[in-house]
């Protein structure tokens, strides 16, 4: 498992809450730090790709295991 600086549990939340909570959580990090997000919303896979593309924060990892999704977002410098 990769290192991360902060974790956000967005399991059970539906669109658009995982993205909104992630945005808030990123605000508490400095550039280059990594946020790990746990989610169960299947739509979040594409949503985090789009979020990364639009905001410039880098999506380092996007994984699925047993109906749970894990994302690693690196805050842009």
């Amino acid at each position, binding site marked *: 498992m990769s290192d991360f600086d902060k974790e956000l549990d967005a399991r*059970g*939340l*539906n*669109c*658009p*809450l995982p*993205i*909104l909570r*992630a*945005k808030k959580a990123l605000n508490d990090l400095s550039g280059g730090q990594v946020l790990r997000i746990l989610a*169960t*919303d299947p739509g979040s896979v594409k949503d985090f790709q*789009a*979020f990364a593309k*639009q*905001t410039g924060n880098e999506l380092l990892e996007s994984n699925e295991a047993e109906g749970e999704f894990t994302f690693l977002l690196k805050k842009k410098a």
Partner: protein
Amino acid sequence: MSEKKMAIIATKGTLDWAYPPFILASTAAALDYEVQIFFTFYGLQLLRKKLQLKISSLGNPGMPMKMGPVTVPMPVVLQALPGMQAMMTTMMKQKMKAKGVASVEELRDLCMEADVKLIGCQMTVDLFEFSPDEFIDGVEFGGASTFLAFAGDADICLYI
């Protein structure tokens, strides 16, 4: 920061139609868009301090209804039965909670935290004789040209 802008006109005052403007606005703000929503006519209900939004079942042939394993459109004649509006509103709220969908209040708060500008249509306020203190703090009031001044430069413009 991206300089993208999104302008939305919200015209509907029911629970279901409260979602598209607040979901899109809060998400766009999270994606670094500058966002304004102009609330006009029934859309002004979405700005009231105490939201009393209902699902209007009447005349909606797209309202889904579970019939065992399948989902079918609810017959309009059922939708017209007394008490259906209150019942369907309660059912919708329960369903949303169970599925982890945010409440309208929560999404509206998130919009305000993210500096989404909420503009109430002054003409509609006068027309329906609303009092300004019925609306949440932070709402600005303006007219068509207020909206157009922002919408003219917007990358996305939606009428909901």
